[in-house]
């Protein structure tokens, strides 16, 4: 029987496993979570008692259905599930996996990567202090632990998650001091009309949540700096759409500008990347069903950021493509329907990308003393002067200036770093180079790395 390895157990990975198990294969799923679910459908540890409705709101039915299906396959041993396990890299048809029992090698014939996405971050002066988090972190803390990351939280950035997290925190009784959206209202309206055309119900739900935030919410905000004292942030300084300066007192700031695809493993597996103007990031190249290379498939937000529903659809598509390539019978009608569904999701997602853009101007204008790399404290000025030496190529700037070399492996500084390099060298971001990923995909003990032979 063919050995299919799925990486990630969010909606895309869980659904891919379901389709493969249904067809009689026994896929292996490697996942970093305690329990399958991913980020959006993340489940709290045992002993927590909030209802699915409290955890997932309007998405509760979908979340519970997926959890049940996946758990049932795993219970019947028709899906082999490795929780709390990270894939570090690939070597000769094997995935090197670091889990609770140490390191194991999992051989596979086909690989489906469903690695999801993480918050796309833009640095601003003061963001390196303790008590500044990603937006996703605020949501995870609430969902998986029932806690707020502070008592007076400012949420800042842009994207659907900004409004959603603010709404969820307030509904749970957390103190939200302000919601600062850097997207101007005019862009939101333009993008929003495309969102509305593609998915009216979802768009209306978001708009409704937004209205509920009332005067806490500000569109077109410009973030200037975060001020911190001994115990964390004390205020965020920002300008409103009419250029008036504000200082909002707070003890926590959560930042995020929509999402960025998690592509390290796709990169290590040899996928080709294209610059996307729409998404303002490098994205893996794949066909409509998710084929991205020899016996390699991508699905979910790690391929295109379409959200949980889109990820489920993409998971089904990739799994059926994999089955078809293995010579299994596949329903062309199901595949066609899901392709149509995905097209609609894409139209919606493009509207989202236009409504809530990456704040390029803010990043380009950041003062020299702004820390770009939170891991190692590298500042914008240092990076700018490295560009003079290294030229406009992200990987050279990285080896000279160390931006992208810290322990987050460039996840939270890479995008802003490339923006600065492009600005400094006067080239398009697409021409400033893409930071190549290096194994291991997660920091790992030396012993675990010995079998990851460097192939460069």
């Amino acid at each position: 029987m063919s050995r299919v390895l799925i990486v990630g157990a969010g909606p895309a990975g869980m659904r891919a496993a379901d389709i493969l198990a249904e067809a009689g294969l026994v896929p292996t799923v490697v996942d970093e979570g305690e329990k399958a679910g991913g980020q959006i459908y993340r489940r709290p540890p045992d002993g927590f008692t909030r209802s699915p409705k409290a955890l997932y709101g309007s998405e509760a039915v979908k979340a519970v259905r997926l959890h049940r299906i996946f758990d049932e396959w795993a219970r019947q041993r028709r899906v082999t599930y490795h929780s709390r396990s990270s894939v570090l890299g690939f070597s000769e048809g094997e995935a090197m996996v670091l889990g609770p029992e140490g390191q194991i090698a999992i051989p596979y014939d086909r690989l489906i990567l469903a690695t999801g996405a993480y918050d796309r971050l833009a640095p601003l002066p003061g963001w390196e202090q303790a008590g500044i988090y990603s937006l996703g972190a605020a949501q995870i803390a609430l969902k998986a632990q029932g806690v707020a990351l502070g008592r007076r939280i400012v949420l800042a950035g842009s994207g659907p998650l900004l409004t959603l997290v603010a709404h969820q925190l307030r509904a749970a009784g957390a103190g939200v001091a302000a919601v600062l959206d850097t997207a101007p209202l005019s862009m939101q309206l333009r993008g929003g009309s495309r969102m509305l055309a593609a998915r009216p119900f979802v768009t209306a739900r978001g708009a409704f949540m937004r209205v509920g935030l009332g005067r806490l919410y500000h569109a077109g905000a410009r973030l200037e700096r975060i001020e911190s004292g001994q115990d964390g942030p004390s205020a965020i300084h920002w300008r409103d759409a009419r250029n008036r300066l504000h200082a909002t007192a707070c003890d926590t700031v959560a930042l995020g500008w929509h999402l960025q695809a998690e592509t390290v493993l796709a990169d290590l597996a040899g996928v080709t990347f294209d610059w996307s103007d729409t998404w303002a990031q490098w994205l893996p190249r794949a066909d409509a069903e998710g084929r991205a290379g020899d016996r390699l498939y991508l699905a979910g937000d790690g391929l295109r950021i379409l959200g949980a529903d889109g990820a489920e659809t993409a998971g089904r598509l990739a799994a059926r493509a994999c089955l078809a390539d293995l010579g299994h019978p596949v329903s062309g009608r199901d595949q066609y329907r899901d392709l149509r569904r995905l097209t609609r999701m894409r139209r919606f997602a493009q509207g989202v990308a236009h409504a809530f853009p990456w704040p390029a101007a803010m990043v380009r204008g950041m003062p020299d003393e702004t820390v770009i790399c939170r891991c190692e404290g590298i500042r914008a000025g240092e990076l700018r002067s490295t560009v003079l030496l290294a030229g406009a190529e992200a990987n050279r700037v990285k080896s000279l200036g160390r931006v992208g070399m810290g322990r987050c492996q460039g996840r939270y500084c890479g995008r802003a770093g490339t923006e600065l390099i492009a600005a400094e060298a006067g080239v398009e971001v697409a021409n400033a180079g893409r930071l190549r990923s290096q194994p291991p995909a997660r920091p790992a003990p030396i012993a675990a790395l010995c079998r990851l032979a460097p192939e460069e």
Partner: protein
Amino acid sequence: MKLAKEPGRLQRLSETSRRPVRFHVDGVEMRALRGDTVLTGILASATYLRQAEFGPEKRAGFCLMGACQDCWIWQEHGPRLRACSTLLHDGMRLLSQPSQDWTGGGS
């Protein structure tokens, strides 16, 4: 490090009737709830996890999803762990920095 009974950075909003667990950070006993991650457990009564190694600031986690490695913490025996993605166990003994001289009480 600010410890013990004072309220820390986090605010518990719900699910507070879980069983208590006890653990130690830098030799000081702390209490939290079963099902807390190491990060939740510490930040429930402290304002940060540890000192940054490349600057004067403190660390209190950043992504909570295993991607940034901001939340590293050390066990008195054995390897470091990611505080955001490790569940707290009764009796855990943790260090805010990888030092042999932990009995000094840490930072």
